[in-house]
């Protein structure tokens, strides 16, 4: 075919959806995975107040004519919705309720998700799904039924040309190939994917997730935002909305080497305190002080006891355990290539602290086992390397963009014809993209 359309890459996360086209180095759209629908179950009229009709002329009437009237009479709940940022704004006013169809990385509301997708594809990306191949992502340990539901929607509702569903962690590994530290295009490594809803530590050996060793930590971006918010509230700051807390988190927070010492630094050096200016809807500005939360908020990854009482294991320890419970022959590769991915790994020095703490844990364990064995000379030590790179924020999306622009991508996809012949279960298996034999 002379005219090949670029594949569409969609990484729908708990908090944000990253949407775009293969080959680009960043997603074209990043917006909340949110849908605002007409509140209430009332089947009747959409009532007065807010016009039920989009403020565009229709094909038929060249304006909101009699059809508009009919539409409002019959109710348009299922069509009257917004997604993304528009959903968040709509829900701020009366009449609409906001829903997040993905929870903890997994799709929970398929009706909402199907509409979210259809709107993403036609109104934002502006593509006819019949003309494109799609690469979608899924969290680790996604139940196969979820894959099948996804395939059903993409093949039956959208008639998409071809579909590939990849595990986010594997894509994140591929994304790290742009780092100068990543020498071989390896698909072996440990991915720390921390987004909005959950943090996963996922060991991957040659492109295959070692499912039995995955660990999840119930602390991620949203929790850090809440933590910042609670500190702002405690101090009685003039604005402690979630939005403000999130902005402060994203622009001021960093990881320190030692929290106790860091407090001392603030007490000696008042320039470490900062100000954040919030512009209220009316245009009035208020100033919020920013203090210890700068380092304390991300510290909850390393000292979870300051935030939670039921989850107490520091992230570096979790990483070490994950690798220790993986097959012995891949452990070296897993320590050597610990790849960061997701918005909540962006704190300055996050990777550095992680590498130091993991190394400490490994060395300590080795030391103990040597003592037990009565060996005195120290061995070669384990190479622990945490990889940060400039695409890690949208790691899974970027990895998907890289892999889906390769010439062989299409042959790895399942097609509508295959779907029709074998049914939804066909998507339980995909050949490994970017793996050995691939590009």
């Amino acid at each position: 075919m002379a005219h090949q359309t670029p594949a569409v890459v969609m990484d729908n996360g708990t908090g944000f959806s990253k949407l775009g086209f293969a080959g680009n180095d960043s997603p074209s759209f990043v917006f909340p995975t949110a849908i605002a629908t007409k509140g209430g179950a009332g089947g009747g009229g959409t009532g007065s107040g807010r016009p039920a009709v989009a403020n565009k002329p229709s094909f038929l009437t060249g304006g909101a004519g009699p059809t508009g009237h009919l539409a409002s009479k019959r109710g348009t709940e299922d069509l009257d919705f917004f997604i993304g940022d528009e959903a968040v704004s709509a829900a701020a006013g009366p009449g609409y309720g906001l829903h997040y169809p993905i929870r903890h990385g997994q799709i929970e509301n398929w009706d909402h998700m199907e509409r979210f997708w259809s709107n993403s594809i036609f109104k934002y990306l502006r593509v006819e799904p019949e003309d494109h191949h799609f690469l979608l992502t899924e969290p680790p340990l996604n139940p196969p039924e979820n894959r099948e539901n996804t395939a059903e929607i993409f093949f039956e509702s959208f008639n998409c040309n071809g579909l590939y569903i990849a595990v986010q962690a594997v894509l994140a590994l591929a994304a790290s190939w742009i780092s100068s530290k990543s020498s071989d295009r390896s698909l072996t490594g440990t991915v720390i994917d921390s987004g909005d809803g959950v943090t996963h530590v996922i060991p991957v050996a040659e492109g295959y997730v070692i499912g039995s060793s995955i660990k999840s930590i119930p602390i991620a971006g949203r929790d850090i935002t809440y933590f910042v918010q609670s500190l702002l509230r405690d101090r009685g700051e003039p604005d402690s909305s979630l939005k403000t807390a999130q902005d402060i988190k994203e622009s001021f927070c960093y990881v320190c080497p030692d929290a106790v010492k860091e407090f001392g630094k603030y007490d000696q050096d008042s320039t470490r305190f900062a100000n954040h200016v919030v512009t209220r809807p009316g245009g009035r500005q208020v100033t919020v002080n920013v203090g210890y939360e700068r380092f304390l908020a991300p510290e909850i990854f390393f000292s979870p006891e300051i935030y939670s009482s039921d989850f107490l294991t520091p992230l570096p320890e979790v990483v070490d355990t994950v690798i220790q419970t993986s097959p012995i022959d891949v452990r070296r590769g897993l320590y050597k290539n610990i790849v960061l991915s997701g918005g909540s790994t962006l704190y300055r020095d996050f990777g550095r602290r992680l590498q130091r703490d993991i190394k400490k844990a490994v060395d300590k364990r080795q030391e103990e086992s040597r003592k037990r064995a009565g060996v005195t000379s120290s061995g070669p030590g384990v190479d622990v390397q945490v990889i940060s790179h400039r695409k890690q924020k949208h790691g899974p999306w970027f990895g998907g963009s890289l892999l889906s622009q390769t010439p062989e991508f299409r042959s790895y996809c399942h097609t509508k014809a295959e779907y029709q012949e074998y049914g939804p279960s066909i998507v339980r298996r995909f050949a490994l993209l970017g793996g050995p034999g691939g590009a």
Partner: protein
Amino acid sequence: MPHGPGQARQPQTDNTLDGSPILPSIIQSWHLRAVIMLLLDYQNVLIQNILAERFSGVPPASVDQTVSDFDGVLFHISTPETKTKILLSIQIRCFRDLVKYGAVEVLQREYGEYATDTEPGYDFSVLIDLEQLPEDRDDREALVLKFALLKRNAMAAPFEAAYTEHYKLKEEASQYTSEEAPKGVLEGGEVMSIHYREEEAIYVKASHDRVTVIFSTVFREETDRVFGKVFIQEFVDARRRAIQNAPQVLFRNDPPLELMDILGEKHTGSGDVGYVTFVLFPRHLTPQRMPDVISHIQTFRDYFHYHIKASKAYIHSRMRKRTADFLQVLRRARPDTEEKERKTASGRSFRVQN
């Protein structure tokens, strides 16, 4: 079969429902509601977003994105030389057809001062110097929109040509009574064909009393074809409900008469192709309404298919609800054990370390 002015020929149409049992009336009314809810923008939102951001006075940054649009249109927006000069290029499958009907002139008129050497692999390029933008905010916004409408403007050429031709024929026809008018005036102009998708085309024909626009469209699936028919039926019904401004819409499975000459024996109604005909009457053909009508009619095919897909989503959601209701009934019948199991299944599915 020539026909005189004022005596509109009624083409044979196939616009009755085939009473398919999978389409309960609820779906039909859904279609009617959907007609007005699923409109698509004329401009490319992403190009619009990127330019709006670049135009807003933020520090210059490099841009390099390949952006798809409907109908295999591809944009490339980049800053190849310096961060302050944005090159925007468009590739259109049917560009050669469009050139035949005046696209170069239309693009020159719209983008003249911005037009630049065409980027290799593309059909038309503009170069936007961020240091030479208009001062006024509204002017900048208008400019952003203009660039975001690149596809629309390129595709507008044959329609504009049809409007012009219609005015000419109308003028000529006004000098004759219907009987004595020369054949050329009565039959109207040649049919312009725009092969804008691999297997689909738009045909435009001007006459002295109308402009006819025909979309040939392929249905990948039987279900899509049935949904499509219901949808067109809504158009037809809506017209009957006396929406004065609506153009006449017809749907048929075999090529309309207007296309007999160009299609010949090639297409004999193979089943998965459908033809949607819009007849624009003089009230749609005023110079004032031209820009809107052209924008609108261009998006028809994508809007149509969006609609079909959204209606399938709607059916799916009803089916899911039915299944859920059904399971609920089952569960009520066996309260205890079921309930416990369900809780674990829908609880947090990740493993928390302990």
